[in-house]
Structure formats: C-alpha cells, structure tokens
C-alpha cells in the first residue's frame, strides 16, 4: 500500500521550475531513495511534501488523505516527520532538552500540572525522561545526555537530529542527506539505524548524495534531474541506467 504519493508536483520559482511534474510513490515499510545531481530539486521536493513550501501545482497524498499545502506541524501530527539538509538542532540546549522538546506531540502534561507539579505531572516527567534515554540509546548518544547540542561532533549532530525526529513518533521519516559530513564508520552506523527503523515499521524516504548508502539500503530509488524524474527502479536498475549515468554519475566523473 502506498503511504505517500505525489502527482504532478510542481514548484515554480519566478519562471524556473525547481520541481516539475513529479510523480512519486512510496510504499509503506520501504526505504525509498531520492537522488539527483546538485540543484535537481530533491530538497525542494522534500519541502513541498512536508509543507515547508507550497506547491504551484500538483497533489500530495499521505496515508490516503490529500495533504497538499498542509502545515508542517499538522503533517508531523499525522506522523510525517523530516530532518534537514543542514543539521538542525536546538543548538543552545542540552542533548536531553533537545529530545524533551522533540517529544512535544507526545507530551501528555498539562499547564496546570506543570504549575502545581502534581504527582501525575511528575510521573509524566519520569516517563518522558525514560523515553529520552530510550531514544538516545537507539542512536548511541546516551553518554552525551548532558552535553550542549552545539558541542557535539558532526556525526553526533546527525544522530541527535534523527533522535529528535523519532521523538515525534513518525510513521514516515524523510531524511535530507543525513550522511553528509559523516566518516565511513559513522555512515555505516547510520545505515544500520535506518534499517532498524524500517524494521520497526517506519517508512523512510532518503534524499541522499552518498551513492553507496543509497544503493546499500534502499529498496527502490527515484532519480531527479532538473526537477523532473528521469528514472525509477531498484538500485541495480538505477546503477545501469544510461540516463542516470550521464546526468548524475557522468557529471560526477567529469567533476
């Protein structure tokens, strides 16, 4: 069953199309890759799907409902959660507080509870504390719980960002170039993490530059160039596709 589908998704900036008639289909429970050269419209597509920018034309369907032009926070409420290309954290807060803020949607406490510090509120806080530890354990950041987010290494930044996204309990996670700035070892850890998420039932749309990562873990890949889809298929099909090689790999080889 398709969890996410875009039909004719188009975004014009001035007269130029950043995304042009994109039809994308993501099946529930898969890891879908979205690749393409720089400026091919990957991030714009992601912004359109998650409501950060409004499409000029086209339709986005999530879990069978039309969510075209919906607000990002409403989509997050529906379980559609994203990360950002440039690592985005609450830099001035601790790792722990980063996650606590990320729990927003699943924070049961009331204002009155917080003001009176009622027993119920304290229990809720304890539960949230456990949830924080659970999430940090998943991404291997437990020892860094008290550190300031801005003091983390590049790899830790990425893991924390993913943990924040997970705090919102996504059913579908859109990751925008999560492997950027990671060394091979860290990228390997990331791959395992994404697989674990998939096994836990989270659908993943992975926008990525790192071909190794993409071909290793994705079930299917869509390739964009100049805002339009030029190929779609399994990693093997994509690697052998002439158009893709010219548009993407060829360009890389020449660079």
């Amino acid at each position, binding site marked *: 069953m398709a969890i996410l589908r875009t039909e004719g998704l188009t975004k014009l900036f001035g007269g130029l199309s950043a995304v042009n008639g994109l039809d994308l289909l993501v099946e529930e429970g898969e890891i879908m890759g979205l690749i393409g050269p720089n400026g091919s419209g990957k991030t714009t597509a992601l912004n359109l799907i998650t409501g950060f920018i409004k499409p000029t034309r086209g339709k986005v369907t999530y879990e069978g409902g039309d969510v075209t032009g919906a607000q990002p926070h409403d989509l997050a409420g529906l379980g559609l959660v994203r990360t950002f290309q440039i690592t985005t*954290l609450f830099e001035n807060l*601790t790792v722990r507080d980063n996650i606590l803020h990320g729990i*927003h949607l699943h924070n049961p406490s009331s204002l009155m509870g917080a*003001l009176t510090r009622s027993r119920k509120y304290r229990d809720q806080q304890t539960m949230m504390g456990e949830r924080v530890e659970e999430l940090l354990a998943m991404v291997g950041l437990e020892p860094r719980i008290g550190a300031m987010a801005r003091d983390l290494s590049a790899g830790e930044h990425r893991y924390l960002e993913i943990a924040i996204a997970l705090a919102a309990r996504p059913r579908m996670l859109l990751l925008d170039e999560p492997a950027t700035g990671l060394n091979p070892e860290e990228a390997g850890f990331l791959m395992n993490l994404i697989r674990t998420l998939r096994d836990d039932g989270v659908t993943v749309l992975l926008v990525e530059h790192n071909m190794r990562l993409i071909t290793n873990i994705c079930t299917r890949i869509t390739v964009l160039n100049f805002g339009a889809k030029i190929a779609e298929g399994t990693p093997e099909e994509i690697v052998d596709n002439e158009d893709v090689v010219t548009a993407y790999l060829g360009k890389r080889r020449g660079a």
Partner: protein
Amino acid sequence: MSVRSTARYGFGVPVLGVALLVPLVLFTNSYNRGLLVLIVIYAIGGLSLDYIMGEMGQFSFGHAAFWGFGAYVSAKLALDLGISPWIGFLAAPVAAGLVGLLIGYIALRRTRGLELAIVTLGFGVLAWTVALRWRSVTGGPSGLRQVPPPSLFGWEIRSELAYYYLALLLLLGVVFILSRMRESRFGRAVRSIHENEDLAKSIGVSATKYYVFAFSFACALVGFSGALYAHHFRFVNPNLLGLQYMFIFLIVVLVGGTGTLWGPVLGATIFVLVSEWLRALQEYRFLIFGVVLLLVVLFMPRGVYPTLRKMSRRMRERSETAGEPALRAENRGPGGEQRG
C-alpha cells in the same frame, strides 16, 4: 527543594529577605516606599516584556500600550462601575490578554523579529492616539484621577508599605509561575520555536499558535502590572501607553538581562534607584540615562544579572573545588545535569 531549585532560587532567598526588611529599615518615609512599589510594578512589567524577548526571542514595541490599557481597564471598572480593584486586577490581564490575542494573531502570522517590532510599534502608537483623543472614555490628555485603592476587609490599602508587600507577594507569584511554565509543555514549545522555528514545526509545534498565545500571556501580565500601577498611584493617563514607559521596560529588561528570571527584577531596582539619584540633575538625567544605557549594552550586552552571576560563580569555583550545578541550561556542562 531539590538541588536545582535551590540553585535557581539561590539568589532569590537572600534578596527576598532584603526586600521584606528594606522598607522597615531604609526606605522609611512614604515617598521612598512609593519607589519600592514602583520597583515591583516595573519588575512585573519587565518580566512580561522579557517573556517576549527572552522566551520568544521576539520584540514588541507596543508593550507599554498593554500596560496602559490594563491600567485603564481596572481604573474604569472601579470609577464607572464601582467594581472592586481586586476584580480589576483580574479583569485587566484578561482584557489585555484578549486584545493581545487579537493583535498577536494579526502580527505573528507573518512577521517576526524586526518586522514584528515595527508592527507592534504601529499598534502601540495607535492605542496611544486613541487614548489621547477619546476624551469621553479616557479623559483625554489629563486622564482619570481618584482611582480608588484596593481594600482588604474594609480597610483601604493606601499605605505604601502595605501596597508594597501586596505587590511583592504578587511579584513572587509571577516569578513562580514563570519559572514553572518554562518546563511545561507550553513553555517548551515556545522555547523550541525561539531556538529553531523550522525544527519546531517539523516535530509538530504549531509555531503561530504557540507564539500568539505566548504573546497574549505577556500582554496579560503587563496589563496586570498596569492595574497595580493604577490603583497605587491612583491616576491613569495616555502617557502610560506611550513610548516613555516602553523605554523604561526595555531598560529594565536589558539592564537586568534577558532570559533570566531575576534579571528584570534587578533591572527595575537599578532603574528606579538610579533615576531617583539622578533626579537632582533634572533635565540632564535623561541624557545621562542614554549614556548609561549605551555603556551597559556595550560592556554588559547580556545584562547586569548574568554578569553578576558569572562573577559569583567564578568566586565560588575559586573557593571550593566541588562544582555546583550551573544555573542555566545554557551554561550547564556535560554530565552536570542528571536529576530525577
């Protein structure tokens, strides 16, 4: 009380002692005690502006308009309808909060930062113009006089000392609520928008909704401070809505330090006392204020309170090796944070 709250209120406890004793020992005449009342009222106003500046990371140039509005609401209720100032103390924040909700909704849907500052300036000046012109309601430029003081069990709180203790109690309540709100779901949502609006949205925080309510809350709080002013000084006039008080709240917040609960309280104290000492200089006073303000911004951009705290921490670190948990999330080192 946990270790952490001792740390948070650490400065507060001795200060509270001083605050309770000072009118009995030092500020013994009624004029000087009036200054103490003013400190408390400005502190509440400053705290509310700091809610916008420190918690939301935004700025409202129309904040004094809500202060004056709150003062007018409570004064009008008492003067025209004979409603008790106690009800006024509730009605003023409710009214200011509702107007704040409306204006916040208009302004915060699209504007942030500098644009918001200018937009709220526009609203503030409009409110001031209306207060000045709508004579039948506001009394025009001369305002309204004979605003009654609140009374308790048939005894009117006219003495500065009693009013000061009342206001101080309310101030402590405000500080308490503000500190607890920080860890509430609402407080965290507001802070997350401040820290990173895109990230906050992506994890499901409705940025506009929370900012509008946070703005409204700050307006309610300053309206409350305005009502306290009206029933103590027993007059209201359009100047209360004007830029002069806006600047005063701004000085209170920035001299004290934004994002620190006690900063505005300290800022209000410094402002009222310094302007009193400078009174002898008459018109030179405001000139000197400008210079002082510039120097404070230049040398203590984070305000006096954080600077003092830093100094005291440094002194403590020198005297003992065992580190005490730092006071602010921002300054907390790795590992120093675990708590139940």
